[in-house]
């Protein structure tokens, strides 16, 4: 008859141990997220209301709502995306589908990876020098969004390229062999099968952009403005900077107000991430190979 040896038994015990160790690590990872959310909801929840979202700050920003900051963040993120998505996706398509495998391509790839590691405050200074001063856009939504776009480009490129590379090479070869050009192959086979990954990457990017403070501080975001921006050459308030301001720069702010701002910011980010996850799940159900 078949008997478990002592080695079998030890392996089985080890298997159980290792499994719970990994589970523990995962739980440890979720814990801070839960704590942050819990504190924010507990302390910021009470101030949440329609009024809070849709009115201007009052009394030297110690009371009232966050409407201009909310609108400003939407402006900044949208304009930044208008630049970073087309440029990033096109660059990723080039690098993944067209670029020959030579030293230049490898150098560009290396540069992109390194660019992703540049601290955001450095991007802020670059944006100040390039867009605000050299191009003369002044402190404006345009300058701030361009700075954000440059900062997010490497990430858009990397995530898009990864989605493209996930499409099996055999699909491309099959198309080329039937006389399809590279572009026909990309359009008919590669893009339709990587679009979910690309969009997921973009949405995650949006949520990161929404939270950035440093890059917009010198380039387009204002402490306080009693009106909404009318175009891309105006300055604007922004959620992330507003949070910084009410937490540290203004005396006499009631304790719950910064938590309320933070909660709204986090909810924005979570909503976008949730959209991205839902979207990914929807498309995964239609997974085709």
């Amino acid at each position: 008859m078949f008997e478990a040896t002592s080695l079998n038994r030890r392996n089985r015990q080890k298997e159980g141990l290792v499994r719970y160790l990994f589970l523990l690590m995962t739980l440890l990872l979720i814990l801070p997220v839960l704590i942050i959310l819990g504190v924010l909801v507990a302390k910021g929840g009470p101030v949440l209301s329609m009024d809070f979202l849709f009115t201007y700050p009052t009394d030297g920003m110690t009371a009232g709502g966050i409407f201009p900051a909310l609108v400003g963040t939407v402006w900044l993120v949208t304009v930044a995306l208008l630049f970073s998505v087309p440029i990033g996706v096109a660059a990723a398509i080039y690098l993944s589908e067209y670029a020959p495998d030579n030293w230049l391509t490898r150098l560009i790839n290396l540069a992109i990876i390194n660019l992703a590691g540049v601290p955001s405050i450095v991007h802020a200074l670059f944006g100040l020098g390039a867009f605000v001063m050299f191009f003369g856009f002044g402190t404006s939504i345009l300058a701030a969004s361009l700075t954000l776009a440059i900062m997010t480009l490497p990430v858009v490129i990397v995530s898009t390229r990864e989605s493209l590379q996930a499409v099996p090479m055999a699909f491309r070869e099959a198309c080329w062999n039937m006389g399809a050009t590279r572009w026909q192959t990309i359009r008919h086979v590669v893009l339709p099968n990587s679009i979910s990954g690309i969009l997921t990457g973009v949405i995650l990017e949006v949520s990161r952009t929404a939270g950035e403070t440093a890059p917009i501080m010198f380039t387009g975001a204002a402490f306080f403005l009693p009106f909404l921006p009318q175009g891309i050459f105006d300055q604007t308030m922004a959620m992330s900077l507003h949070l910084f301001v009410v937490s540290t720069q203004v005396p006499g702010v009631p304790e719950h107000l910064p938590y309320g701002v933070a909660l709204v910011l986090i909810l924005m980010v979570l909503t976008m991430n949730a959209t991205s996850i839902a979207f990914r799940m929807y498309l995964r159900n239609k997974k085709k190979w």
Partner: protein
Amino acid sequence: MVSAPPPPETSAKIQVQVRDLTIRYGSKVALEKVSLDIREHEIFGIIGPANSGKTSFLRALNRMDQMHSSMKVDGQILFRGKDVHSWRNLYALRSKIGVVFPLPVGLPLSIYDNVALAPRLSGTKNKSDLDEIVERCLQRAALWDEVKDRLDSLGSMLSGGQQQRLTIARALSQDPELLLLDEFSIAVDPVTTMKIEDVLKELKKEITIILVTNLVQQARRLADNTAFFLTGECIEVAKTEDLFTGEVKDPRSRDYVEGRFG
């Protein structure tokens, strides 16, 4: 050693003429100085162990060296009398040459779209024309009866054997003059293999077929002439039956087909 092409034994026109074909990947030689002729409406078999350069040979024929940056091709390949290296429009060249890979590639499109893709890429838009092409190609690939009620389902979800026939239908939808098959039966069950072999026998009435195969008996069943490749050399080109029972120039050819190799 350069093996000379066999003397023409029929009056059939030569479809593909290969002279001194050498293929390199970087500095590594994958195929050296191959010369052979392939006639219209024949099945031309290529046998040989792994890494002998069979797939590289097929790649060179439809200029896939363009898509593999390290691949370099020297020598002449005349397709219908014209060197494939002088075709200005490679896409036109490739659309005349159908290819079937070792592992079936059902594109992640519907069965219908798999077969309609090539005609669409070359400009056929009319729905009834496409319907007609799809049905005809699936019929010829012996797949129509199994899928005619679910043309909308995904081609990549069919079984391996069905996907391989779908791949053949897709290759036929290009209306090719030359069909390249690279070890098509590796991932296919024996019953499907037999079905496909019957299909090929029918097809050769209309087009020329190059059949790379790891099964010498398959070459024997199907091929009119067969070449034996060994580590980048074309050891022998002969009438298929001669490889098995007649005279061979190189004893290694006989050893290989009789399974006494290595």
